[in-house]
């Protein structure tokens, strides 16, 4: 049942065409931020308007959509966006990573390996990886043109000199196909290695900043580092209290006033797909 009075996918066909053209350029320019005529959406900027516009432009009646926020399908924003697409497209939705053809995400890459034919759509708040070092867009544009990423290397170098390691724990910058420095969106650095040579197509939408970018399948995505200080993805050194996983990214739950903590998988579908620990073991 599609919401009356709105086109399939909410966006009008002209807007979709404009976004589709931007997407094709983005795929041909891995990691390069393509400016696009981002529209006002019925959800606020910051809630995923870029990802929503990308999804709305690629989604079709045959697709199965999964939406996650913080890795989970049941977080409020994920529920809201899933409902939105259900209202404006009527397409099937799923919580199972393997069943989805399109996965829209905020802040995580699913734990399950993605396959060819799937599209991962990231919601991006700040597409410019250099913005904390150089907020002027005219300047960063020049830096990308010249592949001049000295600022970022200096920052990393200073981090290592002062703290012995990079201080960036999420939104850790990557170099795509050896050319463009790219923000992987605020995913934990733990997820960065998953972007490298991923069989699925990765699309990134930044609505407020009006940029779209992409990583084609099987493309080299390298987290910036130095030979003597290789990139180190981090996760809590614990096991999920529900499924016992030691390989997944974990959320920390504070369970009482005394500050007692539990850890659970952030990827709820991954957690549910594993046999639960017996009560006693938990």
């Amino acid at each position: 049942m599609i919401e009356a009075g709105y086109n399939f996918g909410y966006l009008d066909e002209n807007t979709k065409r404009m976004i589709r053209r931007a997407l094709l350029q983005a795929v041909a320019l891995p990691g390069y931020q393509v400016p696009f005529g981002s529209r006002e959406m019925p959800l606020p900027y910051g809630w995923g308007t870029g990802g929503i516009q990308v999804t709305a432009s690629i989604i079709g009646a045959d697709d199965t959509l999964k939406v996650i926020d913080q890795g989970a399908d049941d977080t409020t924003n994920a529920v809201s966006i899933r409902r939105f697409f259900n209202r404006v497209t009527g397409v099937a939705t799923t919580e199972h990573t393997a069943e989805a053809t399109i996965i829209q995400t905020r802040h995580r890459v699913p734990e399950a390996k993605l396959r060819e034919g799937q599209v991962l759509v990231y919601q991006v708040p700040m597409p410019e990886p250099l913005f904390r070092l150089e907020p002027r867009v005219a300047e960063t544009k020049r830096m990308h043109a010249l592949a001049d990423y000295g600022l970022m290397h200096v920052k990393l170098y200073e981090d290592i000199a002062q703290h012995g390691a990079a201080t960036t724990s999420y939104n850790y910058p990557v170099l795509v196909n050896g050319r463009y420095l790219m923000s992987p969106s605020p995913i934990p650095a733990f997820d960065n290695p998953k972007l490298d040579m991923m069989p699925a197509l990765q699309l990134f939408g930044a609505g407020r900043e009006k940029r779209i970018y992409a990583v084609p399948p099987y493309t080299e995505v390298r987290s910036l580092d130095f030979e003597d200080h290789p990139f180190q993805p981090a996760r809590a050194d614990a096991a999920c209290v529900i499924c016992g996983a030691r390989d997944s990214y974990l959320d920390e739950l504070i369970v009482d006033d005394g500050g007692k903590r539990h850890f659970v998988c952030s990827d709820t579908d991954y957690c549910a797909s594993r046999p639960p620990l017996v009560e006693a073991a938990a």
Partner: protein
Amino acid sequence: MYVAVKGGERAIGNAHAWLDETRRGDPALPELSVEQVEQQLGLAVDRVMAEGSCHDRGLAALAVKQARGDLIEAAFLLRAYRTTLARFGASEPVETGAMRIQRRISATYKDLPGGQVLGPTYDYTHRLLDFALAAEREAVAPAPEGVADPTPMPRVTELLAKEGLMRRETTSEAEPPDLTRDPLNFPVPRAAWLQALARGDEGFLLGLGYSTQRGYGNSHPFAGEIRMGEVTVEFTPPELGFAIELGEIVLTECQMVNQFAGSKSEPPQFTRGYGLVFGHGERKAMAMALVDRGLRAEELGEPVDAPAQSQEFVLYHCDNVEATGFVEHLKLPHYVDFQSELEKLRSLRQEAGR
């Protein structure tokens, strides 16, 4: 005709009569009552209380009505009123930790003691105009009610502080300065700038807070916690020597958790930005917390190069009653000065032509 003529008295009288008539709108429609404004335009009332720095829903609603919905004008009306009020003392500090929660969310934890309470929020609504609201509705079905959860709701920042990851604030028993009585004297202490921000313009703080997120004064913020609800206001009359309850007010509090790289004397840790406003004013409380953290750059030994980190820039320009006054005063006659400019320009041109 726009002429600052003598006999402006009649012109002013007529203008005010016209304003009155315009404010009322079509007399065939029922007049809006102050109670309706207070009940149905509650967020406008909250904003006017915050920026008018006077907690009185009825007066704020009256100001909104009188200002025809111009909220800066309404805040101005309320400020002009509050300044006439006799002051009989200062309340005890309110305890937001004991707030009767209507809404409490943390973006930094999936779950925490006391839980996430969404409350009456637009956050996850789809912004599609609801034409059903254009028609008069009979009655709104009451929202489902649960049993209040008695679990205490510790502050997220406190949980982090217990682990040693949150920088402790320096406490002080000193009487805080009072912005409404003494002018700002730079550099100002945090207590003074928080006062200024609490009654600062929401739009200005929003823009400034936003700029810190876009690289102009980095603060890597996370919304550690936002809570909104009623707190008790207590007052200790000197003749009694113990606190008595005056009543309850609704407040919105925001604690931003920000990264801090550490310094020579301190390890890397989280720091906080703080926002507190009258009523339900989340956008304002969050923006305030971002700007508060920006203003702490100097204290934390960070470079001060962005607008949101400059005390003078932020505090001299965040007050919308001051700002609107000076911007709008350009409407007043300036023809004496302008005349001298005219003459100067003409003589310079003549000089250049020679």
